[in-house]
């Protein structure tokens, strides 16, 4: 087990190191001088040179890379060019809506996908199963921002049940802020339920034919118990993997959905940073989101230990 954990830990660090390098490269391949871009056309060569020096852009790439690594090691993601604050602070201030949006979306997606996927596999080949397969494919084809707009049209504009946009301001009570998250979370939840449904169905189909499921039936227990205790627990490992993956993808789904609903989250921050070429913010957000993905994956690998005794061994 220790070996397993160490292996995963090393794997995680290796991926993270490559991620850092890729982010460094992406930001450095930008054509033109970032300092000149940031300062605009009216900047004097002296201003540009000063900014280059401040950003360390005048040094060789290898030095810049080491400098970058050193910064990261201290937990420093640099200074935002437009927001007049450290990138870490900008990200932290925007984290709440993104966190809750992702959390609720994944809960909604799982609440739809798990029962539907299980039942669909159990009743394979039936009309219900075919309807589920069709729905899953349909949901996977909907752009989340479009679904968000349709939900706004119906539930916010026509029916007036939920706020159209925003996050209710920083002083709004928590419940008000949550009410702003309902529609975006539903939009993202529906779209991402597609993948989880298909995965749940596929891995349930796999295990439902396994010998130990037949053994469970031969013991004389009811179908619900056979399916939920004996089959589903075995199907859970691939399903958890895809839920984790979806959670990470949702962070990027949030980029688009936050724009639709004008939620002041990390996604919104990234979009405005891209539009303003605020490279430190883009770089920081990329790193943090990739790190979240890697961490979620690591967390799921650790969950396996709880579920599967063969990993523990």
């Amino acid at each position: 087990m220790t070996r397993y954990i160490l292996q995963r830990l090393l794997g995680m660090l290796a991926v993270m190191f490559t991620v850092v390098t890729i982010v460094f490269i992406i930001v450095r391949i930008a054509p033109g001088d970032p300092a000149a871009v940031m300062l605009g056309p009216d900047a004097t060569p002296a201003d540009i040179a000063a900014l280059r020096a401040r950003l360390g852009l005048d040094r060789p790439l290898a030095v810049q890379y080491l400098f970058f690594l050193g910064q990261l090691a201290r937990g420093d993601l640099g200074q935002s060019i437009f927001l007049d604050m450290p990138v870490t602070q900008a990200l932290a201030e925007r984290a709440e809506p993104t966190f809750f949006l992702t959390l609720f979306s994944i809960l909604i997606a799982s609440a739809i996908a798990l029962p539907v996927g299980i039942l669909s596999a159990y009743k394979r080949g039936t009309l219900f199963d075919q309807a589920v397969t069709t729905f899953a494919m349909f949901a996977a084809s909907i752009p989340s921002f479009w679904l968000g707009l349709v939900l706004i049209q119906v539930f916010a504009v026509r029916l007036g049940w939920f706020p159209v946009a925003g996050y209710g301001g920083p002083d709004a009570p928590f419940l008000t802020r949550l009410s702003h998250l309902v529609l975006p979370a539903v939009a993202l939840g529906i779209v991402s339920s597609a993948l989880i449904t298909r995965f749940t169905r596929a891995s349930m189909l796999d295990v439902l034919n396994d010998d130990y499921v037949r053994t469970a039936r031969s013991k004389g227990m009811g179908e619900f118990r056979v399916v939920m205790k004996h089959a589903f627990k075995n199907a859970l490992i691939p399903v958890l993997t895809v839920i984790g993956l979806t959670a990470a993808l949702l962070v990027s789904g949030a980029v688009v959905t936050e724009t639709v609903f004008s939620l002041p989250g990390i996604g919104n921050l990234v979009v405005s940073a891209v539009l303003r070429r605020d490279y430190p913010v883009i770089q920081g957000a990329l790193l943090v989101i990739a790190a979240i993905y890697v961490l979620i994956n690591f967390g799921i690998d650790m969950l396996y230990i709880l579920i599967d005794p063969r990993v523990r061994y």
Partner: protein
Amino acid sequence: MAAVLSAPSPSPLAETLPEDVVLRADDLHTHFIVGERAAKSVDGVTLTVRRGQTLAVVGESGSGKSVTSLSIMRLLAYPGRIVSGRILYRLRDGTVVDLASLPEKRMRAIRGKEIAMIFQEPMTSLNPLFTVGDQIMEMIRLHEPVSRQEARQRARRMLELVEIPAAEKRLDQYPHEMSGGMRQRVMIALALSCNPALLIADEPTTALDVTIQAQILDLMRRLQRDIGMSILFITHNLGVVAEIAHEVAVMYAGRVVEQAPVGALFARPRHPYTKGLLACIPNPERDRTADGKRLMLKPIPGNVPSVLALPPGCTYAPRCPLAEPRCEREAPGLVPAGPGHLSRCFRHELL
């Protein structure tokens, strides 16, 4: 649970089943129906299991022996279905029920409690995510209102019964920590934990090494003697049959072609297929000419017919050395061919 099982009045089916018979399948048909086509995997199986005895069902793969056992347990996977026939079973209280038409809920009370089953693949038949103890205790607590501690005591005793050393420690182990032979012992302990009257064993030794095979067969024989259960033993191995069975039913293409006490069957098979099978067993004494030269074994020519397109008459006729024109047209019935001996052949007297 017991209340569900004991019908208030004596079942009218009781007269149809002699006292010493536990299970009788009567012209059982199980088909796998895909669209318009039906794979007739079991096509009129009739067999009898007597109290305290072992009936071995022998046949090649595809003969329908496994499907027969799954039909009895009503564990057929979609799209398999019992199409017609009866499976009469005598409950412990003497009532006779027809398993083929019993409601699923009553069937559940029978599975594990009255009839238990062990399977061919010990490596995959246990759930990898639960301890061996949990899996046995689950079975006990499904059928009997006992506490966890009591169930655990009984599970431990079951492991001791199947001669697993350090039973207490083993209870908390997972299947992957055990060898194949050990897991099959666990499966047997699991199957016997509620004292079933009938044990169905579907090729329980096929996946095991020869030495382990012998141990498991010994164990099953001893347990049958001690507990007095009946066994329906499915195998393709005639050597195993000779070791464990009291009676043998030979299956071919979805039908029982011969049932007889084991001695009579080996001494004088009354069906050309059985005779062909016996000729396939290597026998150093028989397979030698007078001057000591070795003879070749004689394989049965041809193949088992497809269950999707069975011939109209006797299913064995296309491969049978004794076939006459009548065999191609008419399907023979299972007729007496000696004391306790049944054969599905028009020409069994010639053998």
